[in-house]
C-alpha cells in the first residue's frame, strides 16, 4: 500500500534520514518507534509531501508520489499539536477536506454523520475549536484527517500532549476507530506503551535509520540488536559461547554456568548474545517446574517500579527479574538472601554477536 524505498534526506544537518525502506500494508496500524530527535516527524512529512526527499522513492497505492505536492497525495496528517483551524468551528474543520474536494452537500452530511458516530464527537460539532480540551482537539483533528478516506493516515505523536488518564482512554478509542474505519495508519511515537497497545507492526527508528521491523512480540521479546534491547528496556543481555548445538537446542556457556536455549544458525564455539525479558524470569524456592535453566543466586537489590519490583540477582552473571509485590512478600525476598532463578529455554532469545 505505502512503500518507501531507499529514502534519504538531510535536514539542516540536524535530522537526517538514512536509506529508509518500509512496506506498509493496506489496513495496517504501523508504529514508528524511536527516541526523540531520531527523525520520525521528518519521515511523516516526506510521506505527506511537505518536504521532498534528497533521494529515494515513495509510493502510495500504486502511484509514485515522490515529488507530488501534498494536495495530490490523498493522505491525512495529524500533527502533535493537532493544528485545528482556529477560525473555523468543529464542523467546518472536519468538512474542510470534503469541501475542497467539492463533494456534494448530501455526501458531506452523511460522511460527517458516520464519522461523528464512530469518533463520538456529536456534542462538539458547533463548538469553537479554542474551547476544546486536548483530548477533544485530538478527536476533531483525527475526524478531519479521516473525513475524505485518505489512503493513509499519518499520526505524529498523537498522545504526547495529553495527560495520562485522557491518553489511556483515547488509546483504546483509537484502536476501535482504526478497525471500524479500516484505515491504514502510520503512527510515530517515542512511547513503548502506545506502540505495544496499538501496533500491528513496529519499526524501530534510531538516528535516522530503521533498525528493526516486526510485530510487538518480536520487537519487545526478540530484539535483533543490543541497541534495540536497551531501548525496549531489556537489561538481561548476556555474552555467551555456544558449547553444543543440535536441531532442538543449543547449550551455551556464560562464565562457568551453562544454559539451554533454542538453536540459531551459528557454529559451535561462536560468541552470541542471550536476551530475556525480566518478566520471563521466575524466582522461587525449590519449585517443581518445567524450566530447564535453574540457577542459585543471591538477591542484590529490590527496586520498586510501579506496582512491580525489579529484583537484581547475582548468579555468576547478573539477572534482573520483574516480580509482583505478592511474590516478593511470599518469597520473603530481601538483599543478601538466596533465591532460585529459573526461566524456560523458549523464553530466551539468542542473537549473533
Amino acid at each position, binding site marked *: 500500500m505505502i512503500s518507501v524505498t531507499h529514502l534519504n534526506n538531510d535536514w539542516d544537518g540536524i535530522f537526517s534520514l538514512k536509506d529508509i525502506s518500509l512496506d506498509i500494508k493496506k489496513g495496517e496500524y504501523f508504529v514508528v518507534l524511536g527516541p526523540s530527535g531520531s527523525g520520525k516527524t521528518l519521515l511523516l*512529512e516526506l510521506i*505527506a*509531501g*511537505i518536504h521532498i526527499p534528497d533521494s529515494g522513492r515513495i509510493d502510495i497505492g500504486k502511484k509514485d508520489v515522490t515529488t507530488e*505536492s*501534498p*494536495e495530490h*497525495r*490523498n*493522505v*491525512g*496528517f495529524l*500533527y502533535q*499539536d493537532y*493544528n485545528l*483551524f*482556529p*477560525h473555523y468551528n468543529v464542523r467546518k474543520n472536519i468538512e*474542510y*477536506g470534503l469541501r*475542497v*474536494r467539492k463533494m456534494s452537500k448530501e455526501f458531506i452530511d452523511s460522511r460527517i454523520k458516520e464519522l461523528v458516530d464512530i469518533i463520538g464527537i456529536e456534542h462538539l460539532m458547533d463548538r469553537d475549536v479554542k474551547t476544546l480540551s486536548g483530548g477533544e482537539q485530538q478527536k476533531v483533528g483525527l475526524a*478531519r*484527517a479521516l473525513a*475524505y478516506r485518505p489512503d493513509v493516515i*499519518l499520526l505524529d505523536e498523537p498522545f504526547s500532549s495529553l495527560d495520562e488518564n485522557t491518553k489511556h482512554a483515547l488509546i483504546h478509542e483509537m484502536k476501535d476507530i482504526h478497525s471500524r474505519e479500516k484505515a491504514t495508519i502510520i503512527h510515530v511515537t517515542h512511547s513503548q506503551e502506545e506502540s505495544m497497545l496499538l501496533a500491528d507492526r513496529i519499526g524501530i527508528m534510531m538516528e535516522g535509520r530503521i533498525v528493526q521491523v516486526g510485530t510487538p512480540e518480536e520487537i519487545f521479546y526478540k530484539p535483533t540488536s543490543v541497541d534495540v534491547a536497551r531501548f525496549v528496556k531489556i537489561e538481561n543481555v548476556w555474552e555467551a559461547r555456544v558449547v553444543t548445538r543440535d536441531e532442538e537446542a543449543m547449550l551455551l556457556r556464560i562464565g562457568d554456568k551453562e544454559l539451554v536455549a533454542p538453536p540459531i544458525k551459528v557454529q559451535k564455539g561462536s560468541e552470541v548474545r542471550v536476551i530475556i525479558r525480566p518478566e520471563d524470569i521466575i524466582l522461587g524456592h525449590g519449585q517443581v517446574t518445567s524450566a530447564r535453566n535453574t540457577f542459585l543466586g543471591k538477591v542484590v537489590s529490590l527496586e520498586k517500579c510501579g506496582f512491580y519490583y525489579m529484583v537484581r540477582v547475582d548468579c555468576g552473571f547478573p539477572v534482573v527479574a520483574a516480580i509482583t509485590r505478592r511474590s516478593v512478600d511470599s518469597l520473603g525476598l530481601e538483599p543478601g538472601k538466596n533465591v532460585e532463578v529459573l526461566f524456560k529455554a523458549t523464553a530466551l532469545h539468542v542473537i549473533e554477536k
Partner: protein
Amino acid sequence: MGLVIVLFVFITLFNLLYKQLLLDPGNFFSIVTDSMVLRSIWLTLYASFLATLIAVVLGIPLAYFMARHDFFGKQLLEAFIDIPIIIPHTVAGIALFSLLTRKGTVGSVFENLGIVFQDSLWGIVVAMLFVSYPFFVNAAKEGFASVNPNLERVARTLGASQWRSFYNISLPLASPHIVSGAIMSWARGISEFGAVVVIAYYPMIASTMIFYRFNTGGLQESQPIAVLLILICFLTFALFRYFSRKRRR
C-alpha cells in the same frame, strides 16, 4: 515617574482642545468650515488612502513571502524595508524630488505618460507611500509569521492547493494584523509633512495648510485646523486600537 511623559502628552493636547473647543468655539467653527481647509483635509485623507492601497496590494505578497521563507540577504531586505522610517523626512522629500522631478531620468519617463509628480496629487501619494509602507509591510509580516505554518501544511494534505490554503487559512488568520497595519500606514500618511512639502507644496495637504497658516496668521489661525486633525486622528486611532485588541485575542 514615567507617567510624567504621558501627562505631558495629555496636557499638551488637552490645552489645545480646551482653548479651541471651549474657550473660542466661534473662531474654531469659522476656520474649520473654510472650504480651503476642508479641501486640504479631504486631500490628505484621500492621498493617504491611495498610498495605503498601493502599500496593501504590493505589500501583502512581499510580507507573506518574507514571513514564510528564509533566504540569503533576507536581513538586508528587511533593512531596506525599514529605511524610510529612519530617514529624515525632508531628506526623503529631496530624494524623491531628485528622482521624480520633470528634469530627472524617471520623472521625464512618467511625464511622457502624462503623470507629473511635482506639486500634484501623485507627488503627495508617492511621498506618503515612501514613509508609510514599512509600517504596513512589517505589520502584515508579523501577522503571517503568527500563523503556524503547520496549519497551511495540514490544509495542503487535506487537498487544498497552495493558493487556496493561503486564501482560506493564512490570509483570514493574519487579517487583524493586516487591517491594523493598513490603518497605521494610513495614519502615518496623514501625519507626514516634511517629505510631502518638498515634492508638493501645492495642492496643500492639511499639514502644509497648518504650517502655512501658522506662518501667515500665527496660532490664532493654525490651532483650529490642528484641533480638527487631532479629532480625525483620534478616530482613526480608535479604529486601530480596536483591531489591535482583536488581534491580541
